[in-house]
């Protein structure tokens, strides 16, 4: 049956939705649509998420289309919110 749900949105036992995302090769499942980038990065094993950027990709291994700091909330129900990568933040110039 076609439920009409998004590609990373699964429906379980009627009312419970689950958002399946990939941070690199790591699969994460979230029950809520809005999750902090900090939680997503910590779930992927990052111990200092404030020093990293969560980048949403247009497809697996693709190009970044949005980025989130640890303070941001990520809408997992939005377009292009299935595949992510974690990139170091910071930087200066000499």
């Amino acid at each position, binding site marked *: 049956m076609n439920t009409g749900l998004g590609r990373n949105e699964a429906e379980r036992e009627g009312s419970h939705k689950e958002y399946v995302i990939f941070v690199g090769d790591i699969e994460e499942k979230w029950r809520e649509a809005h999750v902090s980038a900090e939680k997503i990065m910590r779930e992927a094993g990052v111990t200092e998420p404030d*020093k990293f950027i969560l980048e949403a990709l247009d497809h697996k291994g693709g190009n970044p289309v949005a980025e989130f700091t640890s303070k941001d909330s990520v809408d997992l129900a939005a377009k292009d919110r299935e595949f992510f990568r974690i*990139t170091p933040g910071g930087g*200066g110039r000499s």
Partner: protein
Amino acid sequence: MSDAEAELPAPFAEALAYVHSHRDGEVRIDAVKDNFAYLWIGSIAKNQSSETPGGWIRLPLAFPYANPHGLVTREALRSSGERLVSDGHNPNHDMCAPVRGVGGAHYYSWTWENAPQLRSPQDIVGVVQWYERRIRLG
């Protein structure tokens, strides 16, 4: 394997092998100067479809125990708005000299300041992504 690659410190060699297996496109060392390797990554993304991907990351031979410093490109980088990226841009800088013979002409003096500490050879993939983000931010 080039002569330069055959003499690399083990952690650097491990990083090179890792980025070979985790990034599409060409990865090679085109020069070594002053304890920095000029690591060509052919898949480094640019902002404009008219730009050819790729660039040389100046990666210390002591990686990951020392930080990357600078990027060399063949063409001047463009921002998403088509203007030239001016942050740290040094056209025809001396830092381009080791790869000038293969087209290196623009040096971006971007440092690892305030970035997270590098801990393992596998962090090389994050380094490449960090350079792509710097290019994207313009």
